[in-house]
């Protein structure tokens, strides 16, 4: 079972190297390794489900001296999501990048990003987390700048600076913790960390760095341009996975490692920022005039929901109630991952076929690109939080927990945010349904349409209907 832990890092990294060395067969290689990685993720999930949390000591050195890879229910689920989204986006990208030279540059970076994501989710070591964060950041920036357009490069540069600032603060936190507790192993740290200036400062600094990376309002400024100007498969992965990786770390730190340190007030602060993100992000998405910007702002908003969970989880006593709410959080994160990736992929199709992604000029799209429009609609369903998407279940738990703990503000925020989401999604669909003649020759490629469709279907149907398994997995894998 623990082989899967190694495979999840080694496979994409090896594939990246091979793709670098053998650009001609890179596409086939990516698809093949993508399948293998997905299989590993499934194996890992299976293992976690049957045997509980797994860990693997690299090099045979005990954790502390060496580095341990760890996987529990949460990380295993997210890893599978990463695998599926990346795989779908890979299939899409194989058609999206028309020129062989483009693909040759793209695939190695793409696989490195995949490596980084997997490594980050599996890492059980503070400093190793820093390295994976940097690997993730650099590969994401490199991919975001891939188009070479001025706006893209500019956005990527800002993305890079922001990412570096974030990592730096994270690293300071790591240093502080090492100074205080002489360990880098998360599991060890969890046991020894005590409230006090070191823990407070370290948590503050690490959180601060991660908040910047996960683009929590009001630190989201870098995200829309970066996600909005990257190539479509990259935008998909940036929005769906990369920001979520940073969020995952925040979650880990706050709920596991520093569980004894965090206070309700601090969690409320995150909640307030989350609320700001929901409202502001949704509002900006509503005002966006380009599809990609809309999707990017929607990401800002959707991340906000995740942060709304912090005050709720802290207010709930540890036990079943909190576990159920945590499941809701995971469900939201999962659904958003699939839906947003699918949305960006679909937007990419629109952009390629019509040469633009101006929302005002989408008239007739539903006739010419029915499957693409359908994918956008499905993604919209998930983003709004309508059933049967997983978001619906997630928001249910969000509202439920808020009511149970008497935190009505978050209920209102969720409601308004959802309605704003509906407004921006149906703004697209309204234009798409227009009966104006669609001026562009639009023949969609199945390799592009189907990944988008399947991802959004996963978000809306699979997660919604098979959602109970998420809770079971989290419970079994803890």
């Amino acid at each position: 079972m623990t082989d899967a832990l190694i495979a999840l890092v080694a496979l994409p990294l090896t594939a990246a190297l091979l793709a670098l060395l053998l650009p001609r067969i890179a596409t086939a290689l990516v698809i093949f390794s993508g399948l293998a990685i997905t299989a590993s993720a499934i194996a890992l999930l299976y293992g976690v489900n049957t045997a509980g949390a797994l860990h693997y000591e690299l090099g045979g050195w005990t954790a502390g001296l060496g580095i341990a890879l760890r996987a529990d229910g949460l990380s295993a689920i997210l890893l599978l999501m990463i695998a599926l989204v990346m795989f779908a986006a890979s299939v899409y990208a194989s058609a999206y990048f028309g020129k062989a030279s483009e693909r040759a540059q793209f695939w190695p970076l793409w696989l490195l990003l995949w490596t980084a994501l997997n490594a980050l989710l599996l890492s059980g070591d503070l400093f190793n987390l820093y390295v994976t964060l940097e690997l993730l950041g650099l590969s994401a920036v490199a991919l975001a700048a891939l188009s070479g357009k001025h706006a893209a490069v500019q956005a990527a540069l800002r993305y890079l600076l922001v990412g570096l600032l974030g990592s730096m603060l994270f690293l300071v936190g790591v240093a502080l913790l090492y100074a205080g507790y002489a360990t880098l192993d998360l599991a060890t740290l969890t046991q020894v960390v005590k409230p006090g200036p070191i823990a407070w400062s370290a948590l503050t600094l690490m959180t601060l760095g991660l908040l910047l990376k996960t683009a929590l309002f009001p630190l989201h400024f870098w995200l829309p341009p970066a996600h909005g100007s990257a190539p479509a498969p990259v935008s998909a992965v940036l929005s769906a996975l990369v920001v979520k990786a940073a969020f995952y770390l925040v979650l880990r730190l706050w709920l596991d490692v520093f569980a004894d340190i965090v206070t309700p007030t601090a969690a409320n602060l995150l909640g307030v920022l989350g609320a700001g993100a929901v409202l502001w992000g949704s509002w900006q998405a509503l005002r966006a005039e380009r599809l990609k910007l809309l999707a990017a702002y929607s990401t800002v908003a959707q991340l906000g929901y995740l942060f709304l969970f912090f005050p709720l989880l802290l207010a709930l006593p540890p036990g079943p109630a909190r576990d159920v709410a945590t499941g809701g959080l995971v469900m939201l994160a999962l659904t958003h991952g699939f839906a947003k990736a699918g949305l960006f992929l679909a937007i990419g199709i629109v952009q390629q076929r019509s040469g633009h992604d101006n929302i005002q000029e989408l008239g007739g799209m539903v006739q010419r690109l029915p499957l693409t429009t359908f994918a956008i609609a499905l993604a919209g369903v998930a983003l709004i939080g309508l059933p049967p998407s997983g978001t619906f279940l997630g928001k249910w738990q969000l509202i439920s927990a808020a009511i149970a703990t008497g935190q009505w503000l978050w209920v209102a925020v969720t409601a308004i945010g959802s309605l704003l989401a509906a407004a921006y999604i149906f703004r697209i669909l309204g234009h798409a349904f227009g009966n104006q003649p669609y001026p562009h020759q639009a023949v969609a490629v199945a390799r592009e349409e189907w990944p988008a469709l399947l991802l959004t279907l996963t978000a809306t149907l699979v997660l919604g209907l098979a959602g109970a398994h998420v809770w079971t997995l989290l419970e079994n894998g803890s």
Partner: protein
Amino acid sequence: MLTTQWLYALSGCLLLALGLRSALLHPALLQRILAINVMGSGVFMLLIAIAYRGPGMPPDPIPHALVLTGIVVAVSATALALALARRLTREQPHD
């Protein structure tokens, strides 16, 4: 903690703050990239100060290894940042 550790650790903090401030406030791109490097150096100094055990004592090798890794990561990031910045100026001709 030893006085030396203190001195260096505090300087590290200072460098960090200095770098952070400039990274946020400096109008020029190049200096901001430098500032982030300065920040990194501050953290490295902190780590190495922590590793220090006094004259004649073998220092803790782990922070050293971390810093080594950090330096390489920093140079990678700097190189990428500079490349991006260069691409940007090339795109945007100035006279």
